[in-house]
């Protein structure tokens, strides 16, 4: 049986089944292409094709027709993707639209891109560099007519049906059409599953191709997992793409209405403009003080009552065991809070350029507390319980409760910190009051700060 010495030879004899190095490089190259060549060719042709030839939606077949019948009079197809089309809608990781990078190459069936027909306008987006196994791309192409869009989709379908399996080096690829309608006029979902020589899976690419009118939406998502997980992933991808798929109706023969333009940042408004570093700016009217006590509930005094929300308040700086976490470089910050006798509550909303920077800040805050479980003399001891992962709050959340003891007995004072990340935004909320550090008191303090900040976390979804 093992002992501590076995730690030093742990890797000896451990069975592993690495894929061939050449396949690792091939997939790395593919990932690299996705990260660097996904692109936009938007507007290049649009200036000369102001309005493309219209065509009413015809019932029945015609999905593979390449020539359009004469268009009914009075209908026009869009020839430009609206600038506010939510191509990145539903993605929780940082993503980018990069018009200078060239043509999107996000479809690959047996080594070729079946989309050969040029559109009149095109936008593309990709995850900037998502954590986890997700790698995603999306594109939206407008064709001169819905017939051309039908033809493009038919080309993709034919490519998949003509090549159900292929081989690249030592890796086999199996292409499977999935029964997963996307809710648009026409759609195709298929998977490209890579299999090693021994038949073990080496990841899958899921493609969602959807057409409405003259628009073709293509999404690819990379996934490593087994068939059961793949089924989940298909559902997740479809749900995540609800927003762009839902707006495909803009390109139909009878288009739906445009969404109202972005408002001036009032509560509940649409997404904010990106800041100078690429992350979201916080609207001035963001409800940062939501659910805090009313201003007039505090004791009289200039420094009592609600604080902010304002960018001029000092940033919160968590501290424990003589260390503190200063606010790192960020895009925007808004601070608020409430102050009363023996009741101090602070809130700070910070946006970062990307999710990784936001995650790093959350890591720093949580580690500060987890590194300091106890401090102080026996008669005035501070003990901290750290919660590193709250499953259902924001994209990621944690916190800490610090309470006090004198010779093992609870003393008044509870300091609670909650940190929540939603996208690239982080909420830091703190509370201090005279509660007691009993198990029930600690539990109540933490559930209380989570509940009190629910509204703010919900509003963060709109940043």
């Amino acid at each position: 049986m093992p002992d501590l010495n076995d730690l030093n030879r742990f890797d000896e004899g451990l069975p592993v089944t690495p894929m061939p190095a050449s396949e690792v490089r091939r997939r790395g190259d593919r990932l690299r292409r996705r990260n660097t060549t996904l692109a936009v060719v938007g507007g290049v042709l649009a200036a000369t094709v102001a309005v493309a030839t219209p065509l009413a939606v015809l019932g029945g077949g015609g999905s593979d027709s390449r020539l359009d019948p004469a268009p009914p009079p009075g209908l026009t197809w869009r020839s430009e993707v609206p600038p506010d089309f939510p191509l990145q809608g539903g993605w929780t990781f940082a993503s980018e639209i990069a018009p200078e990078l060239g043509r999107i190459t996000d479809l690959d069936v047996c080594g070729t891109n079946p989309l050969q027909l040029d559109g009149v306008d095109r936008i593309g987006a990709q995850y900037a560099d998502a954590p986890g196994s997700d790698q995603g791309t999306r594109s939206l192409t407008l064709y001169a007519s819905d017939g051309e869009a039908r033809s493009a989709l038919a080309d993709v379908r034919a490519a998949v049906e003509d090549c159900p399996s292929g081989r690249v080096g030592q890796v086999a690829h199996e292409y499977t059409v999935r029964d997963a309608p996307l809710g648009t006029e026409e759609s195709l979902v298929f998977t490209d599953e890579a299999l090693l020589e021994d038949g073990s899976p080496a990841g899958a690419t899921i493609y969602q191709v959807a057409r409405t009118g003259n628009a073709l939406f293509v999404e690819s998502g990379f996934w490593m997992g087994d068939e059961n997980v793949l089924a989940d992933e298909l559902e997740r991808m479809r749900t995540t793409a609800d927003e762009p798929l839902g707006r495909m109706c803009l390109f139909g023969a009878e288009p739906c209405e445009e969404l109202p333009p972005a408002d001036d940042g009032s509560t509940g408004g649409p997404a904010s403009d990106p800041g100078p570093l690429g992350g979201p700016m916080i609207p001035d009217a963001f409800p940062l003080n939501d659910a805090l006590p009313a201003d007039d509930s505090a004791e009289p005094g200039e420094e009592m009552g609600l604080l902010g929300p304002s960018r001029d308040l000092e940033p919160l700086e968590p501290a424990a065991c003589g260390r503190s976490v200063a606010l790192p470089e960020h895009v925007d910050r808004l601070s608020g809070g409430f102050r009363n006798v023996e009741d101090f509550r602070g809130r700070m909303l910070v946006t970062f350029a990307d999710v990784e920077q936001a995650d790093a800040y959350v890591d720093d805050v949580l580690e500060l507390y987890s590194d300091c479980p106890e401090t102080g003399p026996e008669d005035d001891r501070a003990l901290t319980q750290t919660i590193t992962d709250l499953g259902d709050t924001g994209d990621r959340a944690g916190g800490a409760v610090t309470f006090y003891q004198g010779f093992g007995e609870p003393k008044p004072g509870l300091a609670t910190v909650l940190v929540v990340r939603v996208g690239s935004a982080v909420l830091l909320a703190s509370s201090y009051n005279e509660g007691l550090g009993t198990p029930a008191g600690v539990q109540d303090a933490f559930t209380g700060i989570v509940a009190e900040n629910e509204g703010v976390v919900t509003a963060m979804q709109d940043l």
Partner: protein
Amino acid sequence: MDEREFDDFYTASFRRVTAQVYAMIGNRDEAEECVQEAFVKAWAHRRQLDRAAHPEAWVRTTAYRLAVSRWRRVKRNGRFADRAMAPPMEAPAPSESHVALVDALGRLPEEQRRALVLHHIADLPVAEVARETGSPEGTVKARLSRGRAALAALLDDTNGGLQEGASHA
């Protein structure tokens, strides 16, 4: 890093890094998948890898973060049931000794476990463990001390008697 250098690096370090991540997260198959993916990212970001002083540490950290990220997503989406239903992997099972060690490591707090793995399995000095985990050296030493004591006790329970073990530091 050219193709040949990468292939040599991959061949030499895949098993080692997989073992380290396995010891950190307690799931060999998941560790292997994450390490595999980390090497894919390593090749995709090979310029960045060229600048890294310790390419293996880059891969290990990436794989560990992937595992944590997956775990969070699995937890958020409630996919444990799916995992349980998944067909068994083709790879041979780890030895009893590996399983027992990983089981004991899994009962330690995450920070202690990671420190033990990096110091004893990855053979990093305390200063390197501190750098990789972003913690002060004193904290790492404390985690190692507490972790060793706790692990010895856990293995003692497993073995029915304490076998005085390694003192790597």
